[in-house]
């Protein structure tokens, strides 16, 4: 399909929807950007291995949903839950000491201020279309001991298209932990959820943002745009369990000195699933550290994509940047495409990356089998340990235990 046709699809999508929240300026900018770029095809470097035009070419219809009371499918302790629908409708706005939770309107400060809608096509589409945006502001100095759970239940029928949006602000000196859980089992493989989260981490603030993605047959694209100020600490852990096509764009901008950031990801694929992780860390100022670990297990006829970039700007001396991507292939039909990138314009830096793709060490399997484990048991034990290095960054213990169980379940399902 030609670019022009794709553009008319976009115009149709955008004009057919009413009740957008984004301010006039934001949506105009997004539409202008989209008019220029269109929906990316596989000819775009960032979409080389992932075909999303297919979804748009099949036709998508923007859907609205109504909120019905729900309880989290995760059994976690010490958690405050906010239920969300496909397009982020909710009436569960809890009151938490030191935290403001509200729905955005077109005057909400900071919404769209990262400028992501003029950099990435899907974020622009989201900005032009979203109708609800949840805002969570953790006020200055608040030390939040519970995890805030965004419990997004995804239910999208054939050709349904939803856009959800979240804005997280952690003000100076505050500490918070978030979990965004995308879940659903009834999704159509021609539907699409396009989500954007904007995150602001203030000076001396500390934020841990966890994602769990398990949406059955559905397609999910998330864009997370993070801005960190000096002396802050930001950690993100992204666990991808199922979905026909999962795509995460994670951009972190380190805008002050002495920032520490950790990006962790774990993905497990089977059958014809395609999971794609794109990360981009921008070091603007000196003395920052970024540390990235993405690991994956691929079975069936699945395809994994990892593209990580560390960009060190000219003034960002004394940067420490580390990237690692390790993959285990369990089947000859599975494919892993890994592209760890470094782009460095400062000289006094320590940056390195490593990427490996292979299978389990036969000797390690043999060792375990000699001690009485069957082949599956031995493999599963080694794979769980492989995941463990990523999971250990999750601070909420019940969450970690839940994730371990979910990984175990998926391993069992792969056996079948």
């Amino acid at each position, binding site marked *: 399909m030609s670019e022009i046709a794709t553009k008319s699809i976009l115009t149709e999508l955008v004009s057919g929807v009413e009740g957008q929240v984004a301010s006039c300026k934001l949506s105009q900018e997004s539409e202008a950007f989209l008019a220029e770029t269109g929906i990316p095809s596989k000819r775009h470097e960032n979409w080389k291995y992932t075909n999303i035009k297919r979804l748009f070419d099949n036709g998508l219809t923007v859907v609205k949903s109504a909120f019905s009371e729900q309880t989290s499918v995760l059994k976690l302790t010490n958690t405050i839950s906010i239920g969300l629908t496909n397009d982020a409708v909710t009436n569960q706005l809890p009151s938490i000491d030191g935290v403001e939770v509200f729905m955005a309107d077109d005057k909400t400060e900071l919404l769209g201020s990262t400028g992501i809608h003029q950099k990435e096509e899907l974020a622009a589409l989201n900005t032009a279309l979203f109708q609800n945006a949840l805002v969570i502001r953790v006020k200055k100095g608040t030390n939040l001991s519970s995890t805030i759970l965004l419990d997004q239940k995804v239910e999208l029928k054939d050709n349904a298209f939803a856009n959800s949006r979240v804005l997280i602000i952690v003000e100076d000196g505050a500490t918070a932990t978030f979990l965004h859980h995308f879940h659903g089992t009834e999704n159509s493989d021609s539907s699409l959820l396009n989500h954007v989260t904007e995150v602001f981490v203030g000076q001396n603030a500390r934020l841990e943002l966890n994602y769990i993605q398990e949406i059955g047959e559905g397609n999910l694209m998330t864009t997370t745009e993070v801005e960190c100020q000096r002396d802050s600490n930001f950690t993100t852990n992204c666990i991808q369990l199922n979905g026909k096509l999962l795509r995460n764009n994670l951009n972190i901008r380190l805008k002050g000195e002495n920032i520490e950031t950790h990006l962790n990801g774990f993905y497990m694929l089977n059958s014809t699933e395609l999971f794609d992780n794109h990360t981009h860390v921008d070091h603007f100022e000196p003395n920052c550290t970024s540390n990235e670990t993405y690991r994956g297990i691929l079975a069936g006829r699945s395809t994994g994509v990892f593209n990580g970039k560390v960009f060190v700007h000219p003034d960002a001396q004394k940067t420490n940047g580390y990237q690692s991507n390790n993959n285990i292939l369990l089947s*000859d039909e*599975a*494919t*892993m495409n890994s592209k760890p990138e470094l782009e460095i*314009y400062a*000289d006094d830096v*320590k940056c390195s990356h*490593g990427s490996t*793709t292979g*299978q389990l060490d036969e000797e390690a399997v043999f060792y375990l089998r000699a001690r009485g484990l069957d082949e599956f048991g031995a493999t599963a034990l080694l794979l769980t340990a492989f995941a463990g290095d990523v999971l250990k960054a999750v601070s909420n213990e019940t969450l970690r235990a839940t994730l371990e169980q979910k990984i175990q379940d998926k391993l069992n399902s792969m056996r079948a």
Partner: protein
Amino acid sequence: MAEENQALKEFTEKEYEYGWSIDIETDQLPKGLSEETVRAISFKKNEPEWLLEWRLKAFRYWLTLVEPEWAHVKYPKIDFQDIIYYSAPKKKVELGSLDEVDADMLETFKKLGISLEEQKRLMNVAGSNVAVDAVFDSVSVKTTFQETLRDKGIIFCSFSEAVQSHPELIKKYLGSVVPYTDNYYSALNSAVFSDGSFCFIPKGVRCPMELSTYFRINAMNTGQFERTLVVADEDSYCSYLEGCTAPQRDENQLHAAVVELVSMKGAEIKYSTVQNWYPGDKNGKGGIYNFVTKRGICAGAYSKISWTQVETGSAVTWKYPSCILKGDNSIGEFYSVAVTNNYQQADTGTKMIHLGKNTKSTIISKGISAGHSNNSYRGLVKIGKNATNARNFSQCDSLLLSSTSGAHTFPYIECGNKTAKVEHEATTSKVGEDQIFYCNQRGLDTEQAIGLIVNGYCKEVLNKLPMEFAVEAQKLLAVSLEGSVG
């Protein structure tokens, strides 16, 4: 720090040593590119009909393409109509007799710093063991040691000569590894290539000497489009070296070569490059655009191709010597040192395409950036579905010598077989203060220390060069890094 800056300044202000040109009467085509140009080149070379057809097909295909922009380099658009596509020294050179080589041209060779060794060989000094084919502008002027090689059944001659004497081989292998449809510059090269070298090693023959080609762009506004084809038949071996220089000119000159290697069952080709084209002056003016397509195919089982390159020249380099590992148990290697200074830009790396079982590849890339330069490694390791037990190891290190330079790594790793093992690692750093301090303590000044550290850093690659040239390359590196303290 002040001392470091001073030394750095000296380095960045270092002038190109090979920046001279010699007035030799040349036979040139007028500027511009059209079907007429292609026909004229083919006519001048008295080529058979099929080759002209092939050129024309390539040219028509080229017209449908747009210039690629994906590389991490910036340069003003090239006006392809402003280039002379054919330039040949007017005086006919009889091959086999040294006396007939133009005296000016011998002078030229004398001036080429690293051809001092070749000089002796050109003079046929006893005991030397390198056969040289020198390509001057567009035309191959001299191939030495033809006789010795002929005894072994080895064919080593200029490309246009091979077209006349061995058309069946050229027809069979030309474009078999790099088809004219491969990319923008390979299509251009296929249409207008003027000369180059051809080498065929017959079954079971171990080539007794290093084969060497020397390229030099001399005339103004000329592009150099040479084509090299090396075919190693079953169980043969050859080692091939190319070196390049160009005169200092204000405007940019284009060099778009194609190199094709074919390695049959059990054969081994070792291809080494010392590239020292004019890099432009310290403000980034002038210099060569080096847009080269190099690819080898390990067609048979147990075959091997090894690329070694030392890249110190060119304003813009865009080059990815690659290996297609088709035969089972075949081996591909890539060893590279790329040094950029001033406003030079290099986007270089390799592609290793694993198709056969038990194929192995090794990539060692060392980048050194100074001044305002940008140095990128871009590589692809692809493991096909049937490449059982394929193995790859890649290591890409970058060394930064100034805060205004950039070092980048763009590796693509595509793995489609579970028994394959693919490893990639890269580091970027500057020369450690502790390392310099250690050397200082032991009585070396900072400059010597840097030289020592950088040489050690590149040693892994330099060791892979043929003995005679390893020394040259080491010297070249030492010279370009003179005073590069930082």
